[in-house]
């Protein structure tokens, strides 16, 4: 999921709100297909397709109708809420006693380890694909699109099409994380996507901070840092809960933590100026 946001945020300079909707969409599609006993191998492509369409819609609204990307994202996200409810039929779908990815594949005896390995291999495969993609000629053009639109157009790239493709890709990734989470936690809820974009952004911003600190240009290191950012973010949340902070204050802690990370480099620069 963080990777999806990384693509839209870093590569296109667009904080893509569609994410909130496509995350739930992925989960909803997963739930409904699994409940109707569809073959498991069909679920993932369906989820990717659904997320891709949602992203492409945002892209088309943004580029062809020239609507502010934030607004385009909000529009699609709002529309997706209704779509999700319709797909699911009701606001909460439990997936208990329904065979899912985690019950079908058995790598390890213990269910917890099994889940861990499946999730890890997913992350590794996806990261490798994205990493390769970003290093190709197509990927370089994609990364340049958010950087300097005038340059990339003068180098013969249709930026509209590039943005639509990129947003589709980003939302397909987000939908995929919805697919994983719904099976992991065993239910899909229509409001599970709320605020997900903040978590993703938080992870990306943590990674960005490190990237700027060390002036990372390598695609691979960048991607791994984004993953690390996501893990750090979750750890902070877990630690916060663990030391007994009221769960209701969690969002406040999240906000303060992101603020801290972002302002750290500036604060330390100020310190060195004073000397």
């Amino acid at each position, binding site marked *: 999921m963080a990777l999806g946001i990384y693509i839209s945020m870093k590569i296109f300079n667009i904080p893509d709100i569609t994410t909130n909707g496509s995350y739930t969409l992925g989960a909803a599609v997963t739930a409904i297909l699994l409940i109707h006993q569809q073959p498991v191998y069909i679920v993932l492509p369906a989820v990717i397709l659904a997320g891709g369409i949602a992203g492409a819609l945002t892209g088309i609204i943004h580029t062809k109708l020239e609507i502010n990307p934030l607004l385009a994202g909000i529009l699609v996200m709002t529309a997706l809420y209704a779509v999700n409810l319709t797909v699911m039929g009701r606001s909460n779908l439990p997936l208990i006693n329904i065979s899912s990815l985690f019950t079908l594949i058995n790598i390890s005896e213990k269910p917890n380890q099994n889940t861990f390995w499946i999730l890890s291999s997913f992350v590794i495969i996806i990261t490798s694909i994205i990493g390769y993609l970003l290093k190709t000629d197509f990927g370089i053009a994609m990364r340049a699109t958010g*950087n300097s639109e005038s340059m990339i157009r*003068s180098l*013969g790239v*249709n930026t509209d099409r590039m943005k639509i493709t990129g947003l589709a890709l980003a939302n397909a990734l987000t939908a995929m994380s919805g697919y994983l989470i719904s099976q992991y936690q065993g239910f899909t809820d229509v409001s599970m996507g709320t605020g997900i974009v903040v978590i993703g952004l938080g992870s990306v911003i943590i990674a960005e901070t490190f990237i700027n600190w060390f002036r990372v*240009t390598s695609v691979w290191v960048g991607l791994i840092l984004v993953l690390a950012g996501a893990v750090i973010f979750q750890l902070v949340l877990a630690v916060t809960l663990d030391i007994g902070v009221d769960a209701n204050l969690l969002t406040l802690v999240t906000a303060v933590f992101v603020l801290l990370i972002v302002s750290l480099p500036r604060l330390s620069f100020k310190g060195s100026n004073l000397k």
Partner: protein
Amino acid sequence: MIAVNNVHKTFNPGRANQVNAINGVTLTIKKEEFAVIVGANGSGKTTLLNMIAGSVFPNSGNIQIGGQNVTKLPDYRRSQWIARVFQNPVSGTASDLSILDNFRLAAIRTKPKCLTIGINETFKNQVKEKISTLGMGLENKIEQQMGTLSGGQRQALTLLMSVMDSCKVLLLDEPTAALDPRSAALVMKTADELIKDYKLTSILITHNLKDAYNYGNRIILMGEGLVAKDLDSEHKANLKQNDLFDWFG
């Protein structure tokens, strides 16, 4: 090579802030000609250049490149002929990408961007060799982010990037406006050499009358969205630098 026929462009037509940027310009730039366009702010120079590049479309009239009517072709389709250097160094290069990535994109300007990795050792060496001709010592920094370089370095690299792929037309929109005198001189010298070496047809917009006097083999003065003066190489050679200053007097 480039033919502009009776082109008009009006921004915000019918509103209070209507601007008649170009009022019927007809201009033919011959192959391998290096035309310098001068004129006051708001005289329509940049609009004209943007229309040739395809980022602004004319209200009427037509534009041809190499005998082909390109009036309705968007800028990313015209890249098969045209390379551009922008006024702002940031516009011509991607700051977060490495120098190498920037050159890779430039090297496939006229080709589709496929799902293959195009950067290999051969390509790296080719880029290093190109960059070393600048004598800026940048050839060992090709993995560095473009954003870490100075404006002058970036403009010089943008120029080099334009000839990485087959290029027929080079459009320079005040490439030295944001640079200090020394970098500006280097960028102009590089541009002039590339134009001669690669036999490019080029258009330079500049406010620097010294550059306008020293470079190019044709000079055009624009005013009020029209071509006010147009001197070919013979007349340009007879022109004195002071005459140029008088144009703006």
